[in-house]
């Protein structure tokens, strides 16, 4: 934060786009600013509304050279923009150097990335020395599709404003219509559900929204991280994940795509379409996946059915899909997440967890989904 830790004393802030750059259509500028505000809105209780005239908390403008604040811009390159910490008058304002070539993509200087950084200043964040952070002072063309705040940015802004109010919407919806669900999930929320669960080199990862809990055998208290801390290019709000031990690989699914990660490295050649695994074109996403390490089979759960994939043959087995209810009696037909451990299959459906013995073909225990998280 800045010296004296200036911050806004209210949670609803106004902004105004005072003028536009000739480099971009107006709606592209509007959209970049809105997206940049949303980056911070998602991890704080802050909300923003736009003003079209008068004095807003955050006045956003494009200017060249000397522009009235004794911090002249310097032509193309070097200083791209600056912004003032929270306060009245010019404080909170954002100025972009219009001698830059502002673009929607990474071909020039990407307006969204710079705006998100500058708005961080407007909200009270100073520069970070963490090179992964949005608030690191040097401009870098980030993977714009998978842009995420770093944990450092989130910790910084939440030290000023706290986390957003918890969300109660845990409904799984297709990728195309995933709404931004603000809120940091609470591990002991009795209604907690998981997006996906997978083992990884002896640990268990519980994915939820943009986060994961990491449960290791040597530390009963789970660690909590942003998914982007380990895999910056992966999406959040995952659908499914499973580990293939002999490949030392975790496969991660979202929508009709999947990624392969080995440790913290996303493997080349991904994402791939889920249809390369043998799913029919009508399947647009999967709900959960489970790897049976002993039999080298992977189960994919989609609505009330499941498919089985032979890891040896690398093909989907004949005779599938089958009904979940027929082969996993007692398990809720809609599965959010699943994994294998200690010879059991664990299925997660909403806030409930079903321990299933595949040999006895019966549910042996029902508990809360978050029972793995020391709750």
């Amino acid at each position: 934060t800045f010296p004296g830790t200036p911050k806004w004393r209210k949670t609803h802030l106004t902004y105004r786009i005072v003028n536009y750059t000739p480099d971009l259509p107006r709606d592209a500028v509007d959209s970049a600013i809105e997206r940049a505000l949303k980056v911070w809105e998602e991890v704080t209780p802050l909300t923003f509304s736009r003003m079209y005239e008068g004095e807003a908390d955050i006045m956003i403008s494009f200017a060249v050279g000397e522009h009235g604040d004794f911090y002249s811009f310097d032509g193309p390159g070097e200083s791209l923009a600056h912004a003032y910490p929270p306060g009245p008058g010019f404080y909170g304002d954002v100025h972009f150097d219009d001698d830059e070539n502002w673009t929607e993509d990474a071909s020039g200087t990407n307006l969204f990335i710079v705006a998100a950084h500058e708005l961080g200043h407007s909200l009270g964040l100073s520069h970070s020395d963490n090179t992964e952070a949005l608030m690191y002072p040097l401009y870098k063309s980030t993977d714009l599709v998978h842009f995420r705040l770093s944990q450092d940015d989130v910790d910084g802004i939440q030290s000023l404003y706290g986390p957003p109010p918890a969300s109660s919407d845990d409904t799984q919806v297709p990728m195309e219509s995933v709404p931004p669900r603000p809120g940091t999930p609470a591990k002991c929320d009795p209604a907690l559900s998981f997006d996906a669960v997978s083992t990884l080199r002896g640990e268990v990862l519980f994915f939820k929204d943009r986060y994961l809990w990491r449960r290791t055998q040597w530390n009963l208290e789970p660690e909590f991280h942003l998914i982007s801390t380990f895999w910056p290019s992966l999406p959040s709000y995952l659908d499914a994940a499973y580990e293939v031990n002999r490949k030392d690989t975790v496969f991660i699914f979202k929508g009709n795509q999947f990624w392969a990660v080995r440790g913290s490295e996303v493997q080349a050649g991904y994402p791939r379409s889920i249809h390369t695994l043998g799913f029919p074109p009508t399947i647009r996403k999967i709900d959960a996946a489970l790897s049976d390490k002993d039999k080298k089979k992977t189960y994919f759960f989609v609505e009330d059915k499941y498919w089985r994939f032979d890891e040896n043959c690398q093909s989907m087995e004949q005779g599938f899909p089958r009904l979940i209810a027929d082969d996993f009696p007692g398990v809720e037909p809609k599965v959010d997440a699943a994994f294998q451990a200690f010879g059991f299959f664990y299925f997660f459906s909403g806030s409930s967890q079903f321990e299933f013995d595949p040999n006895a073909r019966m549910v042996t225990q029902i508990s809360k989904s978050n029972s793995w998280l020391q709750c």
Partner: protein
Amino acid sequence: YTLKRAAKEEDISMDLARKYLENYYNLPKDVKKFVKRKDSGSVVKKIQEMQKFLGLEVTGKLDSDTLDVISKPRCGVPDVGHFS
């Protein structure tokens, strides 16, 4: 000619570094003193501070990595201190 060009390049680098330290690391604005004092403790300290903050190897010298980083586009807000 070669010697003169090398000297000129060094001047440009020094000028760039001076402006960078003035703008972002609160180095007092005094051109002549900076050039004269480029090896003096306070300037070296500022260079080290900058290198540490930006994740560079802390040498206290304007090496090629440091010069490369300070010529990259960046946010105009100072890294240390605040707007005066």
